[in-house]
């Protein structure tokens, strides 16, 4: 005579519910930011660097802007260099690439488009911070003055609550001496 006994134990699993934070937050009052090109006034020299600066009263998560210049008077001599605080590759170097006009296209059209986003898991910058550097060389054959400008219509800067900043712009005036 024989038999079989199966014995059964029930484990209790605690399901850890992951609570997702929904982010549709109420809109706050519009934040303000200043977008400027530095130096704002200068006498052109070879390979002169101009920097794009943002001064904001709230953390910035996204910035989109155009930079226009007279390509008959100045030319980029290097690719646009971005600071790491906002990036056109926010998911990593080998992933998604946002707009950053190449030097060749910029010199052909006189326009630079930048779309910069806060990298994943980064800390959103606030206060005064540099977002990009542009290196120009004058090509005008006569002494002249020109402006590197940021067209307001193309500017969009968003804070971390997805609210758009009210942006004040400061362009740069460049004197070309021949």
């Amino acid at each position: 005579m024989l038999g079989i006994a199966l014995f059964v134990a029930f484990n209790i699993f605690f399901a850890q519910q992951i609570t997702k934070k929904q982010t549709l937050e109420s809109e706050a009052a519009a934040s303000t930011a200043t977008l400027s090109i530095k130096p704002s006034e200068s006498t052109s020299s070879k390979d002169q660097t101009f920097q794009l600066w943002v001064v904001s009263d709230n953390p910035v998560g996204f910035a989109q802007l155009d930079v226009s210049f007279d390509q008959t008077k100045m030319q980029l001599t290097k690719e646009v260099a971005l600071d790491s605080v906002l990036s056109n590759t926010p998911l990593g170097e080998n992933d998604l690439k946002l707009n950053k006009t190449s030097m060749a296209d910029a010199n052909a059209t006189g326009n630079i488009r930048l779309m910069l986003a806060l990298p994943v898991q980064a800390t959103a910058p606030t206060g005064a911070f540099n977002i990009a550097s542009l290196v120009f060389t004058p090509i005008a054959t006569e002494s002249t003055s020109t402006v590197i400008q940021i067209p307001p219509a193309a500017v969009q800067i968003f804070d971390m609550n997805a609210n758009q900043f009210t942006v004040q712009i400061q362009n740069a005036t460049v004197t070309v001496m021949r």
Partner: protein
Amino acid sequence: MGTLNVGFQSKLQWEKQAAVAFLNFIKSQSIMLQQSVRIGVVSWAGNMYRVSSLPLTNNWDTVINFINLMTYQSTDAYTCIECAINKSTGLLTSTNRKVIILMSDGVGNRITASCTSANSSCSDPTPPACDNGAYGPHCPQADLAAISAALTQKGNGITFHVVGYGSRTNPVTILENNLRAIASGDSSYHYGGDDAANWSNIFQSIVPQICGGTTPILTPSPRQPTATLTPTRSPTPARTPTPTRTHAPTRTPTPTRTRTPAPTRTPTPTREHIADCKNLPGALFTTDAAGKPVNKNIYADRQDVYLQGGPDQRGAHLPDGLYYYKVTDPSGKINLYSDGYRTVTVIKNVFPATQLIPFAPSPNHGDEYKVWISTVSIFRNQCSKTDNFKIRLSTGDATNDGVVDKKDCGVWAKNVDKHMSGRNNGDFNNDGSVNGADYILWWKNYRP
């Protein structure tokens, strides 16, 4: 049974087959069930030293292999049921719910104390303490030892399901009173008869009971008014034994052979209680993991949706038993379960917390779903209840796959600077424009 063979194969072979069928049946159930159960095995023949065992595991293949490799370890006709119970309970180390499924003819004829070591010969029963009657060698003392061991372990919270086999008719080869006394209640005792081919069905019928239901999936062999060995006692004497007082060996009666009619064969049972479904009472609703909101209807994510019997929280309302459930689109035409359906068992008016994931995204533009529960796997309308719910997917989930990931950012990037609306296009704030604001919403919900 007077022989180790039943039909064309040995009793052990039938037992192994039944046990494997039981395991395979659990394996065929929901993943959650599989993950929540650990199983061990004890087989015995002869004395306690001929008990082979497999400790608790949730590796189903290991258990099945162990059972398939079982061989006879004894050629004698002695059984120490007490040894098996003690061995099982010793290995049942879980602190959670514990169940022992015992398969035996209930005829005890050896006790732990009668064997002192692995190499010693056991004290075989001799009259007058033991007889050699209709059941073969039989010692009421061994019966009491087994019942007493079970009683002790029931007091420790272990539930005993017992499958009894043997003939109820002349010659009677089963001591059902012993088995009923070992079982945790009437519904926990299952008579497998002497038709070993039915044992697999019996084992499967136990699944709803131990896994959350009382209505057998397969109708077991009919319960005959069993050969009550103690007709003059109270109706349930065997279930509340007091071994030291009432089960003295000399009081063990000889079963009356004529009292038990032969089991009536029933048609092959079906797994689904179709006949009962016309007026299926109760309802169902969806709720969260805590089961608090009744009919919550709108959820932040698919993982948040749980099934519950309704219409309120005062019990399952659906009759005890096994139910099939699935998730479809609102029309019911598109099944969103890749595995067809899953099962849940209602027991004692309790509907266990049942999470509905995983299921595919609904093609419905409003992210609406329909959950079905039915007594039949083909989900006939008259056998089913349904309830609709919606998922308000996370902001940033452009691909509608329930997670906010880089793919969603890719959708946003593809459409950025365009006037498009809708989450699926990357317009997460639904303002008709895909821009930096949508990126911020994606960024805040992104899970690396």
